[in-house]
């Protein structure tokens, strides 16, 4: 009896007459709605702001545009921006390589603390990054009286801008190199040493060539940030047109003077630079297979 019952139950299992599609992805209409929503979001928050920089810059015609970016104060701002980057980036490059070398090729206590300390500038608000130098070197700061007595100006002058930029861009190269060099390990360098290469020759001939893409990527990120930094530099700068304004600061000054077209003109240069940075980054990523291992502020 029981056997028959089972037999009957078994025969009631539905026979699948036609192939069933597994729900491995969303139905097409849902997909297109999602794509549309994502693109709309990006349009409003990403694309349009990008586009409007150029439309506003050229709103009064090309002539006004060219005049705005060749005006003496604008040129001075460009020069200061480039100078700042030219000093800050190489210094932080050397730091990044040294730090990455120490951290990835040796074992010692306190490594993760060191890495956290290197990441500090990322978690500090730009305004605070500039402010700490005012507290150190401002008139009422620790070294203020000493500096004033010796006629050295750091705050509200170019040295202050460079210091603030150094602070803010410090981690970039190190952060790129540490995972790359960590992954490569120490075997290659050991092999070079076994072949009697000196320490310096080992670094130059074996390590450097294998980290060149990481270095390039880090330098690009570092330069982009050095050029575009606003908050930290704004605090320490003094906003003296022609003297202590970088390009982002010049944008602010022009904007506050209601000279919108000029402000957007300078802004457009920065935006083009940002675009170039993005293109270089993307190309490097595709070429050397460096993924975005973590979000960078």
């Amino acid at each position: 009896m029981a056997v028959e019952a089972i037999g009957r139950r078994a025969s009631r299992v539905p026979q699948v007459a036609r192939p069933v599609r597994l729900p491995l992805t969303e139905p097409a209409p849902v997909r297109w709605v999602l794509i549309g929503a994502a693109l709309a979001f990006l349009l409003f928050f990403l694309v349009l702001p990008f586009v409007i920089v150029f439309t506003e810059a050229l709103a009064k015609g090309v002539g006004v545009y060219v005049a705005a970016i060749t005006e003496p104060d604008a040129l001075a701002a460009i020069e200061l921006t480039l100078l700042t980057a030219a000093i800050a980036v190489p210094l932080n490059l050397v730091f990044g390589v040294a730090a990455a070398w120490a951290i990835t090729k040796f074992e010692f206590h306190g490594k993760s603390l060191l890495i956290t300390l290197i990441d500090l500038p990322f978690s500090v608000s730009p305004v605070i990054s500039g402010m700490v130098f005012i507290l150190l070197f401002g008139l009422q700061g620790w070294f203020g009286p000493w500096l004033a007595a010796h006629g050295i100006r750091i705050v509200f002058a170019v040295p202050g801008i460079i210091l603030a930029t150094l602070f803010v861009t410090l981690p970039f190269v190190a952060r790129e190199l540490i995972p790359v060099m960590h992954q490569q390990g120490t075997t290659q360098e050991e092999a070079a040493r076994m072949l009697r290469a000196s320490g310096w020759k080992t670094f130059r001939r074996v390590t450097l060539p294998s980290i060149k893409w990481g270095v390039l990527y880090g330098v690009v990120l570092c330069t982009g940030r050095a050029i575009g930094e606003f908050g930290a530099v704004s605090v320490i700068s003094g906003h003296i047109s022609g003297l202590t304004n970088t390009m982002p600061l010049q944008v602010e000054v022009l904007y506050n003077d209601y000279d919108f077209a000029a402000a957007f003109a300078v802004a457009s240069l920065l935006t083009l630079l940002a675009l170039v940075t993005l293109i270089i980054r993307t190309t490097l990523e595709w070429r050397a297979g460096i993924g975005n291992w973590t979000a960078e502020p």
Partner: protein
Amino acid sequence: MEIQVEDLTKSFGSTLVLDRIELKIREGEFLGLLGPSGSGKTTLLRVLAGLDWPEQGRVLFDGVDVLDVPLEQRPVGLVFQHYALFPHMRVFDNVAFGLEVMPRRRRPPKQEIADRVERLLELVQLEDLADRFPGQLSGGQRQRVALARTLAIEPQLLLLDEPFGALDAKVRVELRRWLRDLHDSMGITTVFVTHDQEEALDLADRVAVMNEGRIEQVGSPTQIYEKPKTPFVYDFLGEANKFDCEVEDGVARVGNKALPVGRRMRDGPAVAYVRPHDVVLRRIDDRSRSEDAVLPGEATVRFVSALGAKASVELSYEDRLVEAEITRENLAELEISRGKRCRLQLRLPHIFPKDPS
């Protein structure tokens, strides 16, 4: 160059990796360090290379302690496990590296470097691949480049870390023979590390079997295979069937035989180790006498695998499994099949005291 290792001890954290190692490596010898992972063999190699330092002990090259001698002055070469070829340099530049980084005073002129590199590439039979990059080479080719690169600096001690570990079985055998020939023609003292006992026994003049930071036994391949000093060595070098027995007054009772084990072994429980090819199967009713030990009771055949020249037979005896290796003629003759019962006869058992643990 003759090497003497004395009382070498090293820990990684709380783990003892090298435990008072004593080893003598003869001039021109091809020595294998054989052991499972964690046995300390690679650490010992690295200490010899100069990449690591012990907490205690000495390493003497021709009588001179080299542990404090800088790497550049040690006449040692090391071929890494995964070759560590410089990926951004061509084969030629890889091999030339050791010569090109020499201090200016000692560096040979460019043409001489090129000649020496070419000769080395010919030696390793890769002269056509000088312009290739490591990424374009096969595993066996990379291995030979790594070797050429190391030989370029004319080391007096050549160290090889698992030289064939990353290669296919077929390539492995070919390269083994080739490496042996190379060593014989060059005569450099060579030490290699491996976990593959077949490789060690095939290649080396002597083998040092290591386990948990200690050297269990050093000897020629024949010596350690035929006269293993410890159960570990026996076990590591091949399949082992283990049978309990008792030692009393210098004699072990195995089956129906009393085997002398020497005065030094204490009375008490012991284990007789027998290789599968030393297990002989007898018919139940076979009452003939034998010089070998015949075990009491019956064994039942559980599994027969008759592929290849020999047949593997798995039997259950008392509460354990026994692996026997017999000829196919024997298999047919005894009509061995699943479920068949027979008696076990043991040739050449090695008796070791039973480990209290």
